């Protein structure tokens, strides 16, 4: 049984301007000791999905339907139905959360030592001194310089990456079964990022911790995740083991994402490739396939009319596209080669070719 299983989650915001279905029928599952990467365009609903798990979606957001099952001895519990006092024990206890924006979850008027110790005291029956010792240990673990001195500092005295590491320390302090990490390393340089990711993998190996990793860094996904789910406009559009996804992306959106990265060591002239058009806001998601207005492969009227199901394309590999598996060259008005990359698939390595030839 998976540690966490989300079935058909719908979370919407009821704003004066109408209903905003930010998460619209998402299903996911994470096994014990595994890492699931969740990637997708800004605003597609990744954070709202994560916040829904712990029922932290702020008003006017409501979980409208679906279930979120957390395994426990002898069965599972639906977090959407759990009474608030019990849920509070799960937050920071069995599930640790690293939020996307450190400043929203760190309290500016308390020292960071107090904040981490508080998180420990909430879930563990230990004396205050032990909680503080634990806080110090955690700060060392996330490689903060001068940890003793930092314990007594306030969030504004830390650099962006230090704040992010404090949050990671807080989320891991109680050794949770599941860590939800929403862009946990965006403020870190690559060397410290590598150390933090190694710390998370180590937890996973030692304690069978599961990780839901939300990130836009495809390199991080490739190096850390067992499986990847790609989200677009409130829905999962592709799902596969990480290596498989990078070797054989099936959904045109995923193909576009992989192409938008500049490669290092190659001097580019001209603009980077982007996916044409803008991200739709939830209040006006297009009908049919939600990606079709931006898709170089869209065939009308089919793609604008019918919602494609998430279906098996290859072994262990699902995509939500009518034509996945038979895309061929791009067609339609947006199909000029300017919008979509050509992939060279030499051996194990997949890299987009840029206009001027690159590597």
């Amino acid at each position, binding site marked *: 049984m998976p540690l966490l299983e989300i079935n058909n989650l719908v979370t919407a*915001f009821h704003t004066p301007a109408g209903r905003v279905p930010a998460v619209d029928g998402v299903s996911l599952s994470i096994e014990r000791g595994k890492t699931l990467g969740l990637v997708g365009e*800004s605003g*597609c609903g990744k954070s709202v999905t994560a916040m829904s798990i712990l029922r932290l979606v*702020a008003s006017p957001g409501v979980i409208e339907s679906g279930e979120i099952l957390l395994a426990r001895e002898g069965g599972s519990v639906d977090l959407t139905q759990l009474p608030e006092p019990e849920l509070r024990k799960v937050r920071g206890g069995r599930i640790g959360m690293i939020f996307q*924006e*450190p*400043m929203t979850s760190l309290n500016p008027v308390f020292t960071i030592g107090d904040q981490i110790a508080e998180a420990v005291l909430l879930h*563990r029956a230990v004396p205050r001194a032990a909680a503080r010792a634990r806080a110090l*240990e*955690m700060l*060392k*673990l996330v490689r903060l*310089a*001068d940890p003793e001195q930092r314990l*007594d500092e306030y969030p504004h005295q*830390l*650099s*962006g990456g230090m704040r992010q590491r404090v949050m990671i320390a807080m989320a891991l302090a*109680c*050794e949770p079964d599941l860590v939800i990490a929403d*862009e946990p390393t*965006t*403020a*870190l*340089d*690559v*060397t*410290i*990022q*590598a*150390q933090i990711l*190694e*710390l998370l993998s*180590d937890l996973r190996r*030692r304690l069978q911790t599961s990780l839901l990793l939300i990130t*836009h*860094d495809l*390199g991080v*996904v*490739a*190096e850390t995740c067992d499986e990847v789910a790609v989200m677009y406009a409130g829905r999962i559009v592709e799902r596969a083991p990480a290596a498989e996804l990078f070797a054989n992306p099936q959904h045109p959106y995923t193909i*576009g*994402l992989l192409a*938008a*990265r*500049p490669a*290092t*060591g190659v001097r*580019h002239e001209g*603009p*980077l*490739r982007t*996916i044409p058009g*803008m*991200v739709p*806001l939830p209040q006006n998601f297009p009908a049919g396939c939600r990606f079709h207005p931006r898709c170089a492969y869209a065939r009308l009227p089919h793609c604008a009319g019918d919602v494609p199901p998430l279906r098996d394309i290859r072994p262990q590999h699902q995509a939500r596209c009518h034509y996945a598996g038979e895309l061929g060259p791009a067609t339609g008005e947006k199909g000029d080669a300017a919008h979509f990359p050509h992939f060279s698939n030499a051996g*194990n*390595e*997949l*890299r987009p070719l840029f206009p001027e030839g690159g590597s």
Partner: protein
Amino acid sequence: MTTQPLLVVENLQTHFPVRRGLLRRVSGSVQAVDGVSFSIAKRRTLGLVGESGCGKTTVGRSILRLVEPTGGDVRFAGASVRGMNARDLRALRRRMQIVFQDPYGSLNPRMTVRGILEEGLVIHRMGDARDRLARMRRALDRTGLTAATLERYPHEFSGGQRQRIAIARALVLEPEFLVLDEPISALDVSIQAQVVNLLVELREELGLTYLFISHDLSVVEYVSDDVAVMYLGRLVERADAAALYRAPLHPYTLALFSAVPTIDPARRRRRIVLTGDVPSPSRPPRGCRFHPRCPLAESVCREVDPPATTLDGHLVHCHVAARELERSAGDVRAAAASIAEAMAAASAKPASDAAAASGTLKA
């Protein structure tokens, strides 16, 4: 091409007091920025990279005097920023804008996007109401947001959308110089590409000049003309972007470049893992600040602060690099190659440093 630099940073120093105990007495100082010099010509972009906490944001904030430098100077279009009075400083802050690292923390949650964008225009008395609206629409449009955004509050947006609002706020004042502090780290790759293209386009069209701070080394390479690498409050290397990426000379730069996550498994194997303690900015090591973690450190590195060696505009502070440059008779690429080889050999043994450290995680 030699143009008059728009921005000159000279031996900039910004220290923060460390207070301890009940009386909050000053017991030392965090040497966040400790003698940094560089200049940026008009229409050019300097990329600034380095370890988390090494002082990049503090450099950016010191330039705008959002924090007070404790030494050195900053000159913008010839005028000393440190010597400016409040009035001149206000005028300067229209010409120089900053996009902050934490978009949420920097957007007032009680203001609508309209309020946030209009604030600067009102402070600087730019345009009448109609003109202001037009400017705001233009800035939103440029950052890929619709005018419908205007009446909404920051919390109604995702992280990436908020970052674009922050960029729009800086652009609406039509500044000449922008400090971009991690402007794309909250964005997914496809929006990143859009924002990067946007920044490049604005630079060409409006003749903007950027200080571009980022952890994303490939984006830095793409955007920047020159790149400076910082370590623990100091610059350790600076060169033309292409030259730096082709032939990095400082061991820290090499380690940094090698740690970039990649979907290419072959590149992953050539990673240099830094061991040793994370350095303290309140008690920086003597000699070269990087020596406790440097696989190539020698006795001179532990004693003597390495002076700058400059060759063909490529600047580096490193004893080993200086010697290699001398040995290769000024062939930067040859020197870089031999340093890279030495680094690879020195870190060939897999360092399970992180694993060892996390072994203490026992509640």
